[in-house]
């Protein structure tokens, strides 16, 4: 009974807080554009609006198309149960859960790509192809980061690798962690379809990756997709923040504040990057992703050298 309570409370945090950070990012972008911008809570309103709408389906599609948003949301929810949120320990942890985390993402992606191909539109096929391509490379960088982190912490569980149980010490492992953080940041931008890899805002189908894949989804389905995207960003950020700020005061409230502060800073950073940079040309994106891999790889080399 206890574990179910833990998971539910974990989800409560994830579900309530995650859209907020998307709101923060767009607020930052509006600020840089010299606009007032939508409210911080705009993503919540969007979700509410979408959940009240009816969906339209293409005649070409099959059940895969309807199932993909549900699978996507279910996958990120399962993923969030494996990740500690600041002082809240992950309700599910076991040796090797990083592999499960990576494969759950893969499972969701498989269905996302299939759903895009299900519409039979060449736009969505194009988006699917690009998504598959870039995620392949970013998965490589993600795994390299995981190897380095597990090598540093001598554990293959997310909960032990990051956050409360194992304060990663920057004084000892500074260079390694710096490289990992740099690499992981690029992975976050890729996995969450942000600039400079992808543009979450434009409506030009030809330039987009993630947005064009969900072009045909509407109503509840689109709402699920949007919610899943928000949670995914939240989960990735909460993996990264404890690595950067391994501070532990012992006081739960303080630690939670530090964690949320870190999340805030991270979202603002993403917002600033989106405001000051343009999207990379498509044939340059793979270079960026290979850089992410190279950074993680060098982190590993440094760690091995320090051994």
């Amino acid at each position, binding site marked *: 009974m206890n574990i179910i309570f833990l998971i539910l409370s974990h989800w409560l945090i994830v579900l309530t807080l995650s859209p907020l950070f998307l709101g923060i990012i767009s607020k930052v972008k509006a600020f840089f554009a010299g606009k007032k911008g939508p409210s911080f809570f705009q993503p919540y309103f969007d979700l509410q609006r979408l*959940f*009240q709408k*009816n*969906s*339209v*389906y*293409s*005649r*070409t599609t099959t059940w*895969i198309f309807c199932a993909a948003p*549900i*699978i996507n949301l*279910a996958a990120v*929810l*399962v993923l969030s*149960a*494996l990740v500690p949120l600041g002082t809240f320990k992950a309700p*599910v942890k*076991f*040796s*090797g*859960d990083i*592999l*499960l985390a*990576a*494969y*759950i993402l*893969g*499972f969701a*992606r*498989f269905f996302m*790509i*299939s759903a*895009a*191909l*299900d*519409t039979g*539109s*060449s*736009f969505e*096929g194009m988006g*699917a*192809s690009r998504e*598959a*391509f870039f*995620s*392949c*490379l970013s998965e*490589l960088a*993600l795994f*390299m980061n995981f*190897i380095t982190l*597990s*090598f540093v912490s001598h554990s*293959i569980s997310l909960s032990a690798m990051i956050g409360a149980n194992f304060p990663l010490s920057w004084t000892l492992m500074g260079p390694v962690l710096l490289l990992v953080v740099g690499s992981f940041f690029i992975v976050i931008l890729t996995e969450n379809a942000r600039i400079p890899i992808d543009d979450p805002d434009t409506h030009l189908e030809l330039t987009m990756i993630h947005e064009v894949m969900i*072009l045909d989804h509407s109503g*509840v389905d689109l709402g*699920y997709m949007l919610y899943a995207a928000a949670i995914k960003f939240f989960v990735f950020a909460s993996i990264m923040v404890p690595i950067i700020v391994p501070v532990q005061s012992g006081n739960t409230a303080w630690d939670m504040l530090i964690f949320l502060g870190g999340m805030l800073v991270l979202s603002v950073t993403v917002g600033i990057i989106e405001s000051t940079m343009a999207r990379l040309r498509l044939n340059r994106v793979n270079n960026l992703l290979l850089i992410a891999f190279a950074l993680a790889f060098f982190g590993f080399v440094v760690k*091995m050298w320090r*051994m």
Partner: protein
Amino acid sequence: MNLLLISLSILTISSLLIFLFCRSRKTSAYLFLWSLVAACGFGLWSVLSVLCQKELFLPLTGLDFRLSGHLPLFEFYIGIDFLSAFFLLLFFIVSLSAGIYAYGYLREYTGQRNVGVHLALYHLLMIVIILVLVAKNAVLFLAAWELMTVVSYFLITFYNESEQVRKAGYIYLIATHVGVFCLVLMFLIMGVKAGSMNFDQMRATPFPLGLASLLFMLAFIGFGIKAGFMPFHIWLPYAHPAAPSYISALLSGVVIKVGIYGLMRAMAIVKDFPLWCGVLLLIMAAVSGVGGVLYALGQHEIKKLLAYHSIENIGIIALGLGIGMIGHAYHQDTVALLGYAAALLHTFNHAIFKGLLFLSAGSVIHSTHTGDMEHMGGLFKRLPWSGHLFLIGSLSICGLPLFNGFISEWLVFRSLLEGVFHFDIFGIIFSSMAIVALSLIGGLAALCFAKAFGVIFLGNNRSSEEHHYQEGDLIMRGPMILLAVICLWVGLFPANMVYYAFQGTQAATGMLIPDVLIEAIIGPLLMVTKVISFGGLIFVGLSLLRKFLILGYPMKLTETWVCGYANVTARMQYTSSSFAKPILKIFRTILYFKIETVRPKGYFPVQARLSSSVKDVSEYLLFRPIFFIIKRFSRRFKWIQSGHTQIYILYILFFLFVLLAWKLH
């Protein structure tokens, strides 16, 4: 053992009977089906009672059976240990499914070919594969191995009126014969050192490290050609598309696994290898894995795509074997045991899901009459059974959770990560590179199967002709459903199979497996399956929520949104080549693209054409030049081959005479 002998004798008698009654199609088909079911039933019974170490209903009378004859070196000596039993398990499951499917497939066959002989050969192939897996005498092993090659050649060339099929069979025959040469040499060296051709004595003999390296190289080439490691794989992409689908399933599910079995048997005999052998295997595994999946991405033909995926999966299996060997050389038993067990489990899983994929691809080809993915699309609605079964197979082969592929890939990852924790710096470099290779393989495989599934089954139909699509009946669907259920069963309840894999490892390495280790592996795996089932619950909950939210709204159906363009045709969809283009482009330095274009000319261009294909580097840049040289060289000895039988008999007599003179001297 007696149960396995019953199964063997059923197969022998029935193959003879089918051969006798091959004129009557109906009789031979019925004979085939029922003897197949009976033989596989007895076989599975015996294998399971060995694996469970229990007497299931009938007493187990010994695990060995030997008939001593008067032939020198040869002895009919067979026996089941856990390693054999593990491979027999996958063999019986796959051959049962492929056989029933073959019955369903050939029932409607109305062509001129002699189906009876084909079915008899199927049973003969089963007999020799069983013999290879249980042989405890090297000569028996080699004889059965050689027969396996020849019989499978005849099965591959069923459609022998096509030039392409004959060529494929020829390549298969030649490639695998090169391997036999290495194997004969290897067993001779082992036999001379041990003083006996029996595996038991060989196993009891210590081999010095230098000799062990030589034996490893011979085993690697000999068995590697059969298993399809990357530079030696050229027969696979030819043989699989040429053969009927059920034979492809058997080839990919079982025959190439027999190569892995041979490699493990050789490891069990030699025991200690120098470190570099493991490292070499690991590197070749990574090359096969990444190379296989990249070539698979470049294919338009389903069965060729699946054939390259077999190479990829052999790579994954060999990653486990390689890390096991390195662990053994470092005396890190945990890593070694984990690596071998992971490799064994992936062997089983690959046999199951690859069988499923080949059979369902076969149903698609059966009803569309083409294997070219660019002419398919939208089949999910027309062939729902094949579509769903192919989807299950795809999810399994990508190693995605819920299905069996995930369990074994997870174990391979675990063993590699243990390698990172337990080795010295040299070992860490290789095991971490193997992890990177495996994650790349995983990502690319998911991409490739999302492409294959999406292009074949989703979207609109690209075919220009209107086909009358017809799904196979229950006798063709049944075997596929069986395989799909096993995929799901192992994915959700992995404990039994993991335990059997560890038993197989124990037989192969002779090391005792501590219970702590098994618990340390099965514990997290059970957690994984719990999390996955939990995810399933969430899925159900979210779908109910969605149902609730759209309650009361009518379902609106319309066309796909293509930004206002109205005149959309199916040919405008993304094709499999265009889907794979970006990723293949960044690997173009190691792939060999062949692009043919006819550019549009003039103000009113009439035609333009572009075709691109990915050619196999090792075939075009390695084997073709080598074979060319060999051909030129061997032309000089053409005068020996006169073509007259009398002359050949004279040769034989001459050599017998020389041998006699040598022996008497």
